């Protein structure tokens, strides 16, 4: 074997050299592709627009076509791979206009001063200030900047099957007692009141945990006080989870108990399929589930209502999230063009049409009332700003909240659950405070 190898050595060596050279070239090629390219050529400015929803790519392609027809000096490239965003920041070559869901993660980018101030733009005045407040509540850069303008507001509540409600003569509940009575009615009739998908812990956090927490306490205020305490949070502090979430826990467990048998082994996809087939009366999901439900059963008649958690109908609130918020990166070389594009996106014909098509709410002050029967039940809450951002969205991503919520539903040990949340929160605060 040795002799054979050395006999072939000259050829082998050359081949290896060639291979090494090729490998080296292959390794260097992609690197040289980086670096900011000049974005204005022949008087046409090229903008990069990043959005993170694969399902609306076609809609934005049409929007971009219309925009380019009106603005022949600007070309817009749509990039729907959000995974490029952070690497783009690292290479100092981020997209010019970005739209993301606005919560903890985007707020972190705001804190690092990645986005430009949009408060001077005329369109900023057309936005409902209550919805703008949802964004600024996460903290503003330099204390007063507007880093993002809302584009789409998603409101979540209880999705219900209108046919099952009508067949049992149940009206949409407006108080907690009515809600419990409705669940008992369905149970007595052998229908699962709620379809639970506990195998996917995020569905528990999004539904049961956020809805009950948001309905029973002022989530935004709780978290701003909690953040104010920083790392000095202990279980007996007045700002702790243990001292604020206690009263909400029994209702969470009661809500969880209305799910069908075997909810623990069903996931979100199972839930969509089963609920579309009419296997339960209610489903604790947001508008993102609607298109899936309709896809599984074209004839299904759906509605939504905000979950009442107290017996005062005035307290009933919807869970909202800023599903898309427009930002311009601070050091874009194409600021003027980017502002023109954002202005265009926030024209009523563009932004209202988008939200109408995607079962969401427009952030404009004078947006028309929502007519889509699937979400119109949430319209009053949104109009009157009776809403909250889900408690789960305030957690830093390093706290596995969803898993803790799931654990709580299975073990029913509320004390342990809240103590764990306090501990986790304190540990993250300690190590990020340094």
């Amino acid at each position, binding site marked *: 074997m040795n002799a054979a190898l050395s006999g072939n050595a000259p050829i082998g060596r050359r081949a290896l050299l060639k291979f090494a050279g090729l490998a080296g070239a292959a390794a260097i090629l992609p690197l040289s592709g980086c670096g900011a390219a000049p974005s204005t050529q022949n008087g046409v400015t090229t903008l990069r627009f990043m959005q993170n929803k694969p399902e609306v790519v076609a809609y934005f392609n049409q929007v971009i076509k219309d925009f380019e027809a009106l603005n022949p000096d600007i070309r817009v490239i749509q990039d729907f791979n959000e995974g490029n965003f952070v690497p783009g920041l690292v290479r100092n070559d981020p997209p010019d206009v970005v739209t993301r869901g606005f919560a903890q993660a985007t707020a972190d980018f705001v804190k690092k001063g990645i986005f430009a101030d949009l408060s001077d733009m005329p369109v900023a005045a057309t936005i409902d200030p209550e919805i703008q407040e949802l964004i600024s509540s996460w903290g503003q850069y330099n204390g007063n900047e507007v880093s993002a303008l809302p584009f789409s507001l998603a409101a979540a509540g209880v999705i219900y099957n209108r046919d099952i409600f009508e067949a049992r003569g149940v009206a949409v509940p407006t108080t907690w007692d009515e809600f419990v009575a409705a669940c008992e009615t369905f149970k007595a009739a052998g229908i699962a009141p709620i379809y639970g998908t506990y195998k996917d812990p995020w569905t528990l956090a999004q539904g049961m945990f956020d809805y009950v927490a948001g309905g029973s306490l002022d989530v935004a205020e709780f978290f701003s006080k909690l953040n104010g305490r920083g790392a000095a949070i202990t279980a007996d502090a007045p700002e702790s989870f243990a001292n604020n979430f206690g009263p909400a826990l029994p209702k969470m467990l009661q809500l969880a108990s209305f799910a069908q048998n*075997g909810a623990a082994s069903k996931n979100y996809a199972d839930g969509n399929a089963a609920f579309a087939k009419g296997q339960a009366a209610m489903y604790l999901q947001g508008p993102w589930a609607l298109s899936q439900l309709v896809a599984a059963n074209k004839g299904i008649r759906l509605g939504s209502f905000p979950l009442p958690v107290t017996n005062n109908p005035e307290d009933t609130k919807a869970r909202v999230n800023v599903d898309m918020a427009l930002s311009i990166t601070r050091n874009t070389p194409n600021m003027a063009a980017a502002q023109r594009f954002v202005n265009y996106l926030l024209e009523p014909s563009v932004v209202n049409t988008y939200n109408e098509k995607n079962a969401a709410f427009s952030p404009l002050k004078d947006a028309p009332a929502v007519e889509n029967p699937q979400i119109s039940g949430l319209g009053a809450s949104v109009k009157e700003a009776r809403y909250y951002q889900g408690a789960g969205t305030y957690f830093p991503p390093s706290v596995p909240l969803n898993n803790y919520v799931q654990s709580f539903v299975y073990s029913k040990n509320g004390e342990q659950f809240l103590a764990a949340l306090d501990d986790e929160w304190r540990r993250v605060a300690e190590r990020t405070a340094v």
Partner: protein
Amino acid sequence: MTTTSRVAQTAPPAGRNTPTSASAKAQTFRSRNRIDPTYYWMIVPVLALFAFFITLPALVGVFFSLTNYAGYGDWKFIGLSNYVNIFKDPAVLQSYIFTLVFALTTTVVVNIVALAIALGLNAKITWRTGIRTVFFIPMVLSALIVSFVFNYLFSNTLPVLAERFGVTPLATSILANENLAWLAIVLVTVWQAAPGATIIYLAGLQSVPSEVYEAADLDGAGSFRQFLSLTLPLILGYLVINVILGFKGFLGTYEIIVGLTGGGPGMATQSVAMRIFSGFTGGDYSYQMANAVIYFLITLLISVIQLRLIQRRGVSL
């Protein structure tokens, strides 16, 4: 037993002496005849790739474990406080306990199952080759696909069957049970990992000469006695290899858990690798890097101990 312990006692000096003298001889031999550079051309590219894609990122990771870097943006040095915080974090401790218990259990079960299968497949049974192929299929399937299939079986098929036959404890998925979910993970891991161990055991069994069994037959030893006193000592080296390779692999368990439970229910099946990976998405990069460094040192220690054991057995990888 006496023979093996005598081997164990005499092996180390022999093992230490012979290789050194042999390599010394080889070196004098090689230095007289110039070493063919082909060998370097074979090693250098691999070494360069290894250094660039594994060693360098690992060192960068160690560096960032001393900072408060979130994966992007500003950062500064914070000394060893990430390491101090790791030791105060019960969630991390729990993941270490889970991973160790899981790796130990799985190693034991995999080796028992694989040895049993190997003994069966080594016997002169009908359709031996065909049956061997069937047993090796799990090895070529992707662990992620296997775990998704089992996920479906545990969540949907098994509960329906259990309900029909009135086995109430199994009527809800064991993946939803915080105390039993890890057994499901062990089961699937064993199903996936046993064929690899079986191959090694089969190779070991085929290296045992048939004369020893004939002699044992003449001495009147039963088949169990033959297994205990002949087969097992003769394939001990293969057992050591299987235990070491298996244990190290199971310490890094990731994809089967992702496919089965995703770390749940609750926090019951979070492995160390999953916690570390959560740092990339969770803005907790430097903290989980510190976790990774600690875990690296632990696995390094275990590997060194195991290598020592191997050398004492006179087996080389």
